[in-house]
């Protein structure tokens, strides 16, 4: 109260009330300006440009883009390869997200319940997160090597001849998924550990007194209380699954026979290998729409389960 009065009288005492007032009104926007310039130039303007140019046919051999209506989109939806790419992406999404979430939550709960070696477990699980994707990919090319790779060495120990892993179209996509799970799991373990710290310990105590077993305890106490973390992890995972690229580019180049060709890799191929800018822009527009659509659907579907605070 007193503060307000003091502030008011200070303001009245000033001669430059008018210019000050206008300045004060503009200031909030001025603080946003530097960020806004970058945001518009390198995020929002490019997206709108892509949407616009997706209605034009344009490649390296055409001097000017030519209006083509929905041709690019029609071409994409009649393209068997693009359908394959979408299928690969969906398989990737369905194959990694549940595994990553269940494993990382399970491991986080186990770490959280222990008192000893906690820091060691955290550090070990987290270390792959720090490895650049390019390096992780290279490392796994070596692990998957059919002759000298450690995976086939272990298999041979058990009398199994081993597999070609990333060189066979039946195992390539799965092999890449394993690498991504290995690479990302530590990050989500840490996120879940953070979420678990907010769960009140006394709830576990009373569950114990009431004779709840381990599974019941976590099903009825832990799970409902970490839903905000869970939602966050699901959304991060969805975005991740649509931006997979580095690993494909280094390990398989989309092969064998397009078995590992995913959305962003396909954009890369069409635009920077075949120089078809029209298709590249249409793909960009589609990806932005797909990302937003999936995230909105997920948020709506899960909102009623999420408990805050």
């Amino acid at each position, binding site marked *: 109260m007193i503060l307000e009065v003091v502030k008011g009288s200070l303001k009245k005492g000033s001669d430059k009330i008018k210019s000050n007032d206008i300045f004060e009104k503009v200031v909030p926007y001025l603080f946003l300006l530097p960020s806004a310039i970058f945001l518009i130039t390198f995020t929002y303007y490019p997206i709108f440009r892509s949407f616009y140019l997706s209605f034009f046919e344009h490649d390296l051999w055409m001097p000017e883009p030519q209006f083509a209506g929905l041709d690019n989109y029609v071409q994409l939806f009649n393209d068997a390869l693009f359908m394959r790419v979408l299928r690969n992406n969906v398989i990737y999404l369905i194959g990694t997200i549940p595994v990553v979430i269940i494993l990382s939550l399970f491991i986080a709960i186990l770490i959280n319940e222990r008192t000893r070696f906690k820091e060691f477990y955290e550090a*070990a699980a987290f270390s792959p997160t720090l490895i650049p994707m390019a*390096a992780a990919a*290279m490392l796994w090319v070596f692990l998957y090597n059919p002759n000298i790779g450690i995976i086939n060495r272990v298999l041979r120990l058990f009398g199994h001849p081993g597999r070609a892993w990333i060189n066979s179209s039946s195992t390539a996509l799965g092999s890449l998924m394993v690498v991504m799970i290995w690479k990302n799991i530590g990050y989500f373990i840490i996120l879940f550990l*953070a979420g678990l710290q907010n769960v009140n310990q006394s709830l576990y105590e009373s569950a114990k007194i009431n004779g709840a077993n381990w599974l019941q305890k976590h099903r009825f106490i832990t799970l409902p209380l970490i839903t905000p973390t869970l939602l966050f992890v699901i959304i991060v995972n969805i975005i991740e699954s649509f931006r997979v690229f580095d690993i494909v580019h280094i390990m398989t180049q989309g092969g064998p026979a397009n078995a590992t060709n995913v959305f962003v890799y396909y954009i890369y191929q069409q635009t920077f290998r075949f120089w078809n800018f029209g298709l590249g822009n249409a793909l960009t527009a589609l990806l932005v729409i797909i990302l937003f659509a999936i995230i909105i659907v997920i948020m709506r579907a899960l909102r009623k389960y999420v408990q805050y605070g």
Partner: protein
Amino acid sequence: MLKGEIKIFSYKTKEKVGNLVSHIFLMIICLIIIVPIIWALTTSLQPSEAIFQEGFGLIPRSFRWQNYAEILDAAPFGIYLINTVIVVTAIVILQLLVVIPAAYSFSRLEYPGRDILFYIFIAQMLLPLQAIVVPNYDVMRFLGLINTRTAMVLPFVASGYGTFLIRQQFKQIPQSLLDSARIDGAGHLRILRHVMIPLSKPIITAFALISIVVHWNDYFWPLIITETPSVRTLAIGLGMFVQQESGADWTLLMAGTMFIVLPLLVFFIFNQRIFIESLMIKSGMKE
């Protein structure tokens, strides 16, 4: 009486066994996670014929440190390292310079359109650069920035994540501190410098650390935008090295791989607590 004691006893044993089983399980998981890194490290330190020996080769039988000297000759990894440091430093500094004022505006000032602008700012989180690389390439061509380090910095400067994170922190600073600063005649910039930023150091550090890790690893954008080794960064440099060396001298390839892994890994080992705490803050899940 006796019955009760047995029950307590068996309950305790059960708990002990469960604890032991959990530790064994966690140890195995951690081993599986670390083994690939250890294997790459030992491979990178051995003579090239060593990898064809029997066994798993997790413990080196002979050392050959020259592998690391040789990859520095085979590809300009030294230049890549310098470029990476330049690009990552520039990204982090510029990010902080634009994100902090925006976070201040969104958290502490009132004006029409604030909330909708905030959503527009943070919606960027849903739009990874990978998704909009095609039009961004055009923008860079228009600006004449193809094949420059600048082009590797600019698209990452505005950060929805950073704005969100630092705004959350700024909101928690008591209004009374700001009021008394105002009475002392401090303007917005002085309030930012002397009140908001000093009180938000942990979050700002956290954001900077995350940003370093993320951009140290950038691969796709440098692949598109660079054409010559002189501007390339480590991750993409390794990618190019792999493709020209596909004849595969594995020890050299692994030396190159470890060369880009080790700086961050060593940095992490010495700052483990700060890193893990930062990540927990990053998720915004820790109060």
